[in-house]
């Protein structure tokens, strides 16, 4: 038993490095999507102290809108633009109808409000687009299918073109977001608002503008993850679940840390795949991916309550 836990998995990894690489690659693909979603959470949390429970349903809603519009006969790329427009309108509406009237209320009330948004979007999405599963229009969007086979160390490494596309697009999006946050006036305003609300108000930063913006960013992220995940698993309300995978990422990375969200996402993605393949399947009968991330996050929380990269609470003494 001890052998199976502590020795055999590592021997396997060393003996078949190509397979290990394959596992890590697949982990990376889901990891980068987790990271992206976690970023959406972090931006909203930092600028408004709201834990956005609706992030998951936004993924579904974006994917549904995209597929639904295409079904109405709109060309694929126009669909993407229109869906972005819908996500923007959604952001404006949420700010106007939900956030603005609730300004200054306790955090838990705002959290409940996002649950309300979730339920609303579930119902609204079903009424407009119907509840049945749909197929993502990946071909029409020009997402490549097929795969590339590499042979590292004489072994076998299969890279799905879809996965490569996902990794490239998600990485670009993350980099663009980082650049936006660090080098633009608006990005600085978002970070400033996270540090000190009152001071941000005093220099004339408008809460409303920042909120619409972060919710719109969350919407863009939702659309990208919706397309990526929908292309593999189909578009259904089950997609919501992947957003909840971002929760352990947040516990691990810290709710406020942008770097934490990215590193946490990648770590969770890869670790859960590794655990599943080398420990889960042989020892526990598989299907560990659904809970592994949460257990890992719990263990981390026991030792570092602010998360691995939780924004350091700056205290001068």
């Amino acid at each position, binding site marked *: 038993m001890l052998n199976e836990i502590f020795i055999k998995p590592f021997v396997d990894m060393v003996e078949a490095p190509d397979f290990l690489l394959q596992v890590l690659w697949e982990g990376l693909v889901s990891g980068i999507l987790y990271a992206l979603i976690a970023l959406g959470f972090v931006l909203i949390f930092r600028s408004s102290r709201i834990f956005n429970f609706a992030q998951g349903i936004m993924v579904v809603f974006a994917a549904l809108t995209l597929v639904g519009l295409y079904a109405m006969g709109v060309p694929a790329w126009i669909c993407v633009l229109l869906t972005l427009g819908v996500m923007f309108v959604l952001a404006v509406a949420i700010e106007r109808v939900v956030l603005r009237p609730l300004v200054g209320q306790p955090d838990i009330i705002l959290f409940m409000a996002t649950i309300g948004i979730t339920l609303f979007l579930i119902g609204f999405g079903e009424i407009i687009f119907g509840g049945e599963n749909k197929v993502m229009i990946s071909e029409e969007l020009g997402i490549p299918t097929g795969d590339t086979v590499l042979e590292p160390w004489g072994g076998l490494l299969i890279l799905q073109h879809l996965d490569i596309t996902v990794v490239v697009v998600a990485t670009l999006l993350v980099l663009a977001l980082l650049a936006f946050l660090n080098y633009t006036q608006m990005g600085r*305003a978002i970070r400033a608002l996270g540090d000190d609300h009152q001071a941000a108000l005093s*220099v*004339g930063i408008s809460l409303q503008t920042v909120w619409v913006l972060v919710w719109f960013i969350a919407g863009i992220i939702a659309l990208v993850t919706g397309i990526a995940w929908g292309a593999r698993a189909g578009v259904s309300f089950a997609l919501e679940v992947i957003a909840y995978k971002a929760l352990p990422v947040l516990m691990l990375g810290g709710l406020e840390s942008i770097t934490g969200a990215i590193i946490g996402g990648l770590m969770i993605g890869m670790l859960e795949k590794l655990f599943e393949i080398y420990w889960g399947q042989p020892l526990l009968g598989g299907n560990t991916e659904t809970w592994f991330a949460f257990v890992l996050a719990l263990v981390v929380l026991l030792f570092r309550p602010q998360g691995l990269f939780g924004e350091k609470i700056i205290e001068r003494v």
Partner: protein
Amino acid sequence: MLDAAKTQETLLEVNNIEVIYNHVILVLKGVSLSVPKGGITALLGGNGAGKTTTLKAISNLLHSERGEVTKGSINYKGERVQDLDPAALVKRGVIQVMEGRHCFEHLTVEENLLTGAYTRKDGKGAVEADLEMVYSYFPRLKERRKSQAGYTSGGEQQMTAVGRALMSRPETILLDEPSMGLAPQLVEQIFEIVKSINENEGVSFLLAEQNTNVALRFAHYGYILESGRVVMDGPADDLRENPDVKEFYLGMSDEGRKSFRDVRSYRRRKRWLA
């Protein structure tokens, strides 16, 4: 200097305002004051006198703290401004530097300064130029520009806060308690800089301060606030010579040590101030 300030136009006019927090707590009970263009106006008084509330009423930061102006009016250059949001006021040239500095801790000093230019639309070049202007007043900030503001000293944070306000190209700065928690030497230094900003950039100041001594040396005009009312006002030099101000705020007395017999009259004067 004093006469120059007097003859110029009035920028800010506060007329008899009342402020209520949370619908129940009456904090200001009719405060009136005016800030002339190009002057440094001091707002003096002890803890809880209403200095901060007055400034926040003007800058409209009260709303986010559940406070509201229930009576009276606040005019800036003749325009009623009490229903605007803080951003609109910053665009009109009025910006507040809050008590306790309130820097953005995780942003670098330079990023802090740049957030001050948030409302400006006059382009990158102008903002860069003003950044240099701020650094010329606060050379220390230039040395620390890459450090996170949360890790700089109290004095540096105060400088960052003032510099950040300056980056909005303001006409009037509402400066709340710049001396708080700083060593006397540093307080002196900050006030010197405020004075030179006032003289060189033509920025008017409304300055809330507990440190009456320093404030009256640098200000042109002063208002003394007690429990939400203005109890005395006048040119700073007159206030400094006023026996009551001397006794209650500057800790000096012409009579020297008081005998027990004088206590009654002391009380009477105290009541008058309260």
